[in-house]
């Protein structure tokens, strides 16, 4: 049976199994599965998926639920955590919550499970107000996730709360299924004047194929600050479709950094919607891939209100037969005067067989705005290589240092020092060098 049919036919069983009887949810899920049934998986015929084909991965015989409760030892997965800093942790194994690895809280803020939030009465008001409110119900993969939405991280921060500890959200796949598809669903609500830092990661623990179709909704209320970091350093048998939707109210600042180093096919759909003035949105990413890896960044910033800013900066280094895609759409509505939208996308190709498809898309309907975009595609600067080699730095190290330098604009804006160090280490590791210093 094809995956699409398998998913549709599993839907009833899924709803029965989770039994979170709630008519509103049932209606949301039912209409979502119908939309998925109508649209199916996206194909390259759609403009938005022109450069990314899911065909090959959809041929896997994915299980749509893990059969068993699986456990992993902390020692086995310790390296995937931020160990040098105290954090809240919401951890999942094969799509199921792991209380053993997690460190949740209800003390002044809620850092807990979507499955509780969707079922317990005390969360109902928040769920009614925010759940599935900005996720694009037209999008087939988002609909698929909504239909099977049940588990994930639920974070609700009341007003005027600076959350001191970063929150780590990690999804582990153990490989107990020959192939597994999961549908994680996260909801983050950041109250007025509040501040939170979140790190999200998806990690396979062995080489059995994985397809993760994740949806995250983030709501930043007035003057809220949210910094969200995505570490994509998975095995090359893992595939990730990340759909992140962000709604910002007046004076809020939200940043999303996406670090894509691993995985087979990774698609990041990142959408920002503005609802208020003086909003600041930051979208940054570093992609370093090789072999036959594929990373597609599809970003949208919808400027709907005046006096807002958005800053995009994506750096890509491609080696081997890898493919990168950057499709950055900035939409400035007629009312959004004095918008300041900036977009930059720099790409380095290390191999003749690597490909980048870069497509900035600016649609501007207001007449008093500042929008700029720049896109470069090049190789490593030979003069810079010679300069460093002349100072005694070997070719491999010089190359690595140049790549470090190339990505530094993005790494430098990571606000958690321990995370910045970790990312510097991952990059050094990826480039096969020990630089002896952190950026």
């Amino acid at each position, binding site marked *: 049976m094809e995956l699409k049919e398998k998913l549709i036919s599993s839907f009833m069983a899924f709803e029965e199994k989770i039994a979170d009887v709630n008519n509103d949810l049932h209606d949301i899920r039912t209409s979502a599965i119908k939309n998925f049934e109508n649209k199916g998986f996206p194909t390259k015929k759609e403009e938005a998926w022109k450069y990314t084909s899911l065909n090959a991965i959809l041929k896997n015989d994915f299980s749509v639920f893990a059969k068993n409760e699986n456990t992993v030892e902390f020692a086995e997965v310790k390296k995937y955590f931020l160990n040098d800093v105290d954090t809240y942790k919401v951890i999942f194994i094969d799509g199921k919550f792991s209380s053993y690895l997690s460190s949740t809280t209800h003390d002044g803020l809620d850092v807990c499970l979507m499955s509780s939030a969707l079922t317990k009465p005390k969360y109902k008001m928040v769920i009614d107000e925010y759940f599935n409110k900005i996720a694009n119900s037209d999008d087939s993969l988002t609909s698929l996730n909504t239909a099977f939405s049940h588990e994930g991280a639920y974070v609700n921060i009341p007003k005027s709360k600076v959350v001191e500890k970063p929150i780590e959200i990690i999804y582990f796949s153990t490989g107990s299924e020959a192939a597994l598809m999961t549908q994680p669903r996260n909801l983050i609500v950041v109250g007025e004047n509040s501040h939170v830092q979140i790190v999200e990661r998806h990690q396979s623990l062995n080489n059995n194929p994985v397809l993760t179709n994740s949806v995250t909704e983030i709501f930043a209320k007035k003057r809220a600050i949210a910094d969200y970091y995505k570490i994509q350093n998975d095995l090359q048998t893992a595939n990730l479709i990340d759909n992140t939707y962000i709604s910002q109210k007046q004076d809020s600042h939200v940043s999303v950094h996406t670090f894509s180093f691993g995985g087979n096919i990774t698609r990041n759909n990142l959408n920002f919607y503005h609802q208020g003035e003086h909003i600041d949105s930051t979208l940054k990413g570093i992609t370093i891939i090789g072999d036959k890896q594929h990373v597609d960044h599809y970003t949208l910033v919808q400027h709907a209100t005046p006096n807002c800013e958005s800053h995009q900066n994506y750096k890509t280094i491609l080696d081997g037969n890898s493919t990168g895609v950057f499709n950055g759409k900035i939409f400035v509505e007629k009312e959004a005067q004095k918008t300041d939208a900036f977009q930059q996308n720099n790409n380095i190709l290390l191999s003749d067989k690597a490909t980048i498809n870069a497509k900035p898309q600016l649609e501007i309907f207001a007449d008093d705005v500042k929008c700029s975009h720049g896109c470069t595609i090049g190789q490593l600067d*030979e003069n810079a290589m010679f300069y460093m*080699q002349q100072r005694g730095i070997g070719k491999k190290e010089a190359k690595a240092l140049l790549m470090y*330098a190339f990505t530094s604009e993005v790494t430098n804006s990571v606000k958690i020092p321990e995370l910045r160090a970790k990312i510097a280490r991952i990059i050094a590791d990826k480039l096969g060098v020990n630089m002896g210093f952190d950026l």
Partner: protein
Amino acid sequence: MLSIKNLHASVEDKEILKGINLEIKAGEVHAIMGPNGAGKSTLSSIIAGNENYEVSEGEIILEGEDISELAPEERAHKGVFLSFQYPVEIPGVSVTNFIKTAINESRKARGEEDMPANEMLKLIREKSELLEMDRKFLSRSLNEGFSGGEKKRNEIFQMAMLEPKLAILDETDSGLDIDALRIVANGVNKLKNEKNAVLVITHYQRLLDYIVPDFVHVLMDGKIVKSGDASLALELEEKGYDWIKNELV
């Protein structure tokens, strides 16, 4: 120290050096002068190992060893330093981190341990004072947004840190105001000793007022056409390069 014999080199099939012979002994300062396009910068790049040039004939011998097949970093490990005419900007890597990496990579290549951190700091302080460099300068990204003078001063700072046997200064005076020129020249003179050698590549005589050469060579159309002592530089300044051209005819 350095012995160049019948060196021919080309880039993209265009012959630029047409048989260079040059002998530099330890403790000496040599200057190579010549008009634009004579091949001065090509010669310095080739000694340092720039792979964009093809050496078709001849030898470059450093302390008895032919280095013409070695990679640029291997020549650096053996003590060749080139102060670039146009130092490259490397955003995201500080001056301090860059020089630390350079020193430790050279030490590693020679089978030595990394330089202890306190020793490194002391050396950085000492050498940056010699070049009258501001401390803030050291934490800035390498050459990024530096003025012409700052870039050259930073080159000589790196030279001071690396203590090369053979230092090649390629048009180090270009872009320098008179104060910076004095500081840079003073730095070079302080580093000069019996065991190392300096090769100054310059279009103008100005720098040679401060770094006084033992020998001056005139490079024209890929060949050294005349050699002499420091007075040759003054003569060139006065009479221009056409004088030599005429003399050759």
